[in-house]
C-alpha cells in the first residue's frame, strides 16, 4: 500500500549539509500497523514529514520514491504537486502530531475545526456537517459530544485534545494514518485509552497505521511490524514478535536492553555507549552505528555501501555481521 | 576573548547589511569623537562675504546664510546629537530595566503600580509630552535628555516586564533559588542577562528615535538654541531657504540625520546576534 524505496533527505544548514535520511526502505500493507522506532535524531519524524509533504524548506529529497496505492489512487508521494498533495492529505493519508494542543487552532471551537476539514474534503451538504462532526466525536469516545463540540482546546485535557486530533485526522476516512508520537506527554493511563482507541478504529476502518515512537515497549504492544531507525538509517525491520525474540541488529538488541521493563532488574538495564555520529560530517562512516557498536570490525564494517540483507523474507537488517 | 572576536567577525561578515550598519556606526562614532578636530572650518565663525554659496571644492556642503561651512557644522553637530541620544537612551534603559524587571518579577501590587504609571505616561502623545517637559523645565541640553528619556521609558519598562514575566517561572530561576540566590540576585544575575539580547534590538531602534526626537525638539525651537551646530536646528534654519533655491542648507544635515537613524535601525539585529551566546557555534 505504501512502499518507501531508497528515500534520502538532506538538510542544508549554516554549518553544512545534514544527511538526515539515507536509503530508507520500508513498506506498509493495507490494514497493517507499522511502528517506526528510534531515539531523537534518528530521522523518524523527518520520514513522516517527507511522506506528508510538509518537510521544512531547508530539507530536500535527494533520492527515492514513496509509492502510495489505495482503492482510489496510485501515486508517488514525492513527485506530486502541492495542490494534489493537499487533496491527498486528509482523504487518503492523514497525520496526527505529538502535541495536540499546539496542533489545534486555539481560538476555534473543536467541533468547528472538524467541520472545516469535512467541508474541504468531502461533498457532504453543509447541513449535515455538524451531524457528521458529532458522529466523529462520538466515534473517538468523547463523553458528551454535543457539549464538547463547542469547547475550545484550552478547556480540554491533553487526552481529550489528542482524541479530537484523531477525530480530525479520521474525518475523511483516510486509508493511511501516520501517528507521530501520539501519546508522548500524555499520562500512562490516558496513553492506554488513546492507543486502544487508535487500534480499534484502525481495525474497524481497515486503515493502515504508521506509529512513530521512541518507546519500544509501546510499539511492541500495538504494532504488527517494527522498523528500527538509527541516525537516518533503517537498521532493522521485522515482525514485532521476531524482532523482540531474536533481534539481529546490535542496535536493536541494545535498545531492548536499555528500556526499563517490569521484569528487568537494575543490573540488566544496559546503557548504550557512544554518541550519534555527526550527520554533517563529510567522512560519515557507511555504517552509522559503527561508533557505538562493540562488534565493529573496520575491515568488514568500513565497506561501502552498507550491507542490507533480508535474513528472512520479512526480516531485513543493515549490518555486516548480524547477531 | 578570541571567541568573542571571532564571533563578531562572523556576525559582521555573514550579513552585508549588518556589515554596512556597523561600518556606518563606526564612521558616526569617529565623527562624534574627532568631529571638532578634523572639521575644515570653525562651525561658528561667520563670514558674510561667502554666505549662501552652493557646494564647491572649498565648501563641499556649501555655506549657510551667515557664511558658515555646512560640512563643518554637520561634523561638529554629530557629537551633540549622538551624545543626547546615547545619554537619553542609557537613562531610560537603566530606569526602565529596573522598573520592568521589578514589575515582571514581583508581580502583584508592584506590577500594578508600575504598569499603571507607565500607562498614564503612554496616554500622552509622546512628542507633545516631550515638548511640554522641555518648555516647563527650561531650554537646556540636560532637559532634552530628561524629556527624551522620559518618553522612551514606557517602551523599555513594558518590553522588559513581559520578557521577565515569561522567564520568571523558568526552571533556571527556580534552580537559582535552590542554590541560594535571593530575589535581587536572581533578577540581576539570572533574569536580566537573559533579557539583554532582546533589548539590544530595542535599544538600537530607540537610538534612531532619540536622535530624531532631539532634532525634532530643536527644529521647533525648543531645546538646543542657535548658533550651536545641531542637525535639527540646521534643517529648521535651512528649510526657509529651500524655496529660494538654496537646498544644500537643509539637505545635508537632513541626509546625515536620516543616515544616522537608518544605521541604528539596521544595527539592532546584528547587535542581538553578537550578544546572544546561543548564536555562537
Amino acid at each position, binding site marked *: 500500500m505504501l512502499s518507501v524505496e531508497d528515500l534520502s533527505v538532506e538538510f542544508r544548514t549554516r554549518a553544512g549539509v545534514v544527511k538526515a535520511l539515507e536509503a530508507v526502505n520500508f513498506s506498509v500493507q493495507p490494514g497493517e500497523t507499522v511502528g517506526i522506532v528510534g531515539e531523537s535524531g534518528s530521522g523518524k519524524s523527518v520520514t513522516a514529514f517527507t511522506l506528508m509533504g510538509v518537510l521544512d524548506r531547508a530539507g530536500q529529497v535527494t533520492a527515492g520514491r514513496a509509492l502510495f496505492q489505495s482503492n482510489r489512487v496510485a501515486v508517488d508521494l514525492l513527485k506530486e504537486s502541492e495542490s494534489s498533495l493537499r487533496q491527498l492529505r486528509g482523504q487518503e493519508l492523514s497525520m496526527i502530531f505529538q502535541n495536540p494542543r499546539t496542533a489545534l487552532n486555539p481560538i476555534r471551537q473543536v467541533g468547528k475545526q472538524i467541520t472545516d476539514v469535512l467541508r474541504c474534503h468531502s461533498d457532504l451538504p453543509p447541513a449535515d456537517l455538524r451531524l457528521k462532526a458529532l458522529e466523529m466525536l462520538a466515534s473517538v469516545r468523547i463523553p458528551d459530544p454535543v457539549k464538547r463540540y463547542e469547547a475550545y482546546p484550552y478547556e480540554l485535557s*491533553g487526552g481529550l485534545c489528542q482524541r479530537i486530533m484523531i477525530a480530525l485526522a479520521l474525518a475523511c476516512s483516510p486509508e493511511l494514518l501516520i501517528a507521530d508520537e501520539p501519546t508522548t506527554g500524555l499520562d500512562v493511563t*490516558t496513553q492506554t485509552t488513546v492507543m486502544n482507541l487508535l487500534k480499534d478504529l484502525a481495525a474497524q476502518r481497515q486503515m493502515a497505521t504508521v506509529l512513530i515512537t521512541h518507546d519500544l515497549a509501546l510499539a511492541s504492544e500495538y504494532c504488527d511490524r517494527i522498523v528500527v531507525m538509527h541516525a537516518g538509517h533503517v537498521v532493522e525491520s521485522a515482525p514485532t514478535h521476531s524482532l523482540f525474540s531474536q533481534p539481529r541488529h546490535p542496535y536493536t538488541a541494545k535498545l531492548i536492553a536499555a528500556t526499563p521493563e517490569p521484569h528487568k532488574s537494575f543490573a540488566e538495564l544496559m546503557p548504550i555507549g557512544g554518541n550519534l555520529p555527526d550527520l554533517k560530517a563529510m567522512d560519515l562512516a557507511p555504517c552509522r552505528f559503527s561508533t557505538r557498536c562493540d562488534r565493529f570490525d573496520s575491515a568488514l564494517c568500513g565497506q561501502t555501501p552498507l550491507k542490507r540483507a533480508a535474513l528472512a523474507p520479512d526480516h531485513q537488517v543493515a549490518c555486516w555481521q548480524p547477531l | 576573548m578570541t571567541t568573542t572576536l571571532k564571533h563578531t567577525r562572523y556576525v559582521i561578515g555573514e550579513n552585508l547589511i549588518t556589515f554596512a550598519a556597523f561600518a556606518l556606526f563606526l564612521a558616526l562614532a569617529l565623527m562624534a569623537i574627532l568631529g571638532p578636530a578634523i572639521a575644515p572650518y570653525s562651525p561658528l565663525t561667520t563670514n558674510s562675504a561667502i554666505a549662501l554659496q552652493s557646494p564647491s571644492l572649498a565648501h563641499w556642503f556649501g555655506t549657510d546664510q551667515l557664511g558658515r561651512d555646512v560640512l563643518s557644522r554637520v561634523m561638529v553637530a554629530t557629537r551633540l546629537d549622538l551624545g543626547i541620544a546615547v545619554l537619553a537612551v542609557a537613562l531610560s534603559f537603566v530606569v526602565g530595566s529596573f522598573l520592568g524587571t521589578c514589575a515582571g518579577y514581583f508581580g502583584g501590587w508592584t506590577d500594578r503600580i508600575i504598569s499603571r504609571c507607565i500607562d498614564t505616561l503612554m496616554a500622552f502623545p509622546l512628542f507633545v509630552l516631550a515638548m511640554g517637559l522641555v518648555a516647563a523645565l527650561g531650554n537646556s541640553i540636560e532637559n532634552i535628555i530628561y524629556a527624551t528619556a522620559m518618553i522612551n521609558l514606557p517602551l523599555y519598562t513594558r518590553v522588559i516586564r513581559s520578557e521577565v514575566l515569561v522567564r520568571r517561572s523558568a526552571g533556571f530561576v527556580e534552580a537559582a533559588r535552590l542554590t*541560594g540566590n535571593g530575589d535581587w540576585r536572581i533578577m540581576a544575575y539570572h533574569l536580566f542577562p537573559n533579557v539583554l539580547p532582546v533589548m539590544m534590538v530595542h535599544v538600537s531602534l530607540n537610538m534612531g528615535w532619540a536622535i530624531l526626537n532631539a532634532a525634532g525638539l530643536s527644529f521647533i525651537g525648543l531645546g538646543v538654541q542657535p548658533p550651536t551646530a545641531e542637525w535639527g536646528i540646521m534643517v529648521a534654519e535651512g528649510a526657509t531657504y529651500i524655496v529660494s533655491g538654496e537646498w544644500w542648507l537643509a539637505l545635508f544635515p537632513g541626509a546625515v540625520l536620516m543616515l544616522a537613524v537608518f544605521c541604528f535601525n539596521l544595527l539592532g539585529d546584528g547587535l542581538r546576534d553578537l550578544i546572544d551566546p546561543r548564536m555562537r557555534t
Partner: protein
Amino acid sequence: MTQLQPHFANALPHLPPPLLRVENLCKVFPVGKAAQLHAVDQVSFQIQPGESLGLVGESGCGKSTLIRLITRLLDVTSGEIYFDDALLSTTAARQFPRSQHRASLQLVFQDPTDSLNPRFSAYDTIADPIRRLSPQQDKQQLQARVAELADWVGLPQDLLSRFPHQLSGGQKARVGIARAIALNPKLLVLDEPTSALDVSVQAVILHLLADLKQRLGMSYLFVSHDLNVIRLLCDRVLVMYLGKIVESGPVDQIFSHPQHPYTEALISAIPSFESKPHPIALTGEPRSPINPAPQVCRLYGRCPRGEDRCQQVMPELQAIAPNHQVACHFPVSAAADSRD
C-alpha cells in the same frame, strides 16, 4: 469483604528518626473569586535517612506542587514539613535561600534545558551553589571542587566552559545533577530526571544516580510517571492521585499486589515487551481538583469499583499490611477475598 486490620498500624518496626517528615500538608491555589484548586490535600509521609522514596502520579496530580513545597520553593497553605527535626514549613519560601537547610535540600529538575541558565557556562552553573551557600570561597578550591563534581557525574572537564546550548541532553542532565549535589545534600528530590532523555541516555543517568546515592549516602525522593523507572531505583513508593496519596508501600509489594484500583490500572498500563493481560482502562474524565467535594473519593467516576459509599465517605489511608497503606473502601485484595 474482610474488615481492614487497624492493628497493623501499630506494628510498624522501630525506625530511626526520619530525615523528612511531612504532616497533613495542604496547598490550595485560588482560582478566580470563589474557587480553590486543591493541589495537595492532607498529605503525610516520611523519608528515612538513606532511603529512596518514589512518588508516582499523572500530570496534574499535584506531585510537582508537593516537591516544590518540600524543597521550599512554594509556601504551604497548612500542615508541617520537618527536616532533620527542624520545622521548615514556617519559613517563607522567599526567605529560604538564606536558611541553613537550603544546602541539604536540593532538587534535580525535569527539563535539563529549561533548568540551566542559557547565559551561564556549565562551570558557572555548578559553581553557583558553592559560591552562594558554602563558606569556602577560595578560587582554587572552587575549581577543584567543580572538577571533582564533574568527574562524579561523568562530565568531561573540557565541557565545563560550554554553554547549555552547546551540550547534548544527557550532558545537560549531568550538569543539573552536579549542581544539585554540589553541597552534599541530605535529601535530593528528583523531578522526573530522565523523562526528557532518550532511552539510551536514560539508562546511563539512572545508573549514575544509583552510584551517586551510594557514594554520598543521600536520601532520594524520586518523582516519576514511569513506574518502571521507580521500580528500579526506589525502596518504597507513594502513589498520588488528584492531590491525595492513595497508596504507599514497599516497591515490590505495590508492583506485585497493588491494592488501590488506580495503582492497579497504572501498573497494568505500563507498556512491556512481554504479552500481558489487557490493561485496565480508566474510563471517564478525572474529577476536577477545583473545589472538590470533601466526602467523594477523588477517583470516583473513573474507578471500575466505584460504589455509592465512595461518594459518601472519603476513604482514608489505612494500613493493610506492615508498611503498606491504601486509601480505598474496596481495595483489590479485599475484593478478591470476598470473591473466594
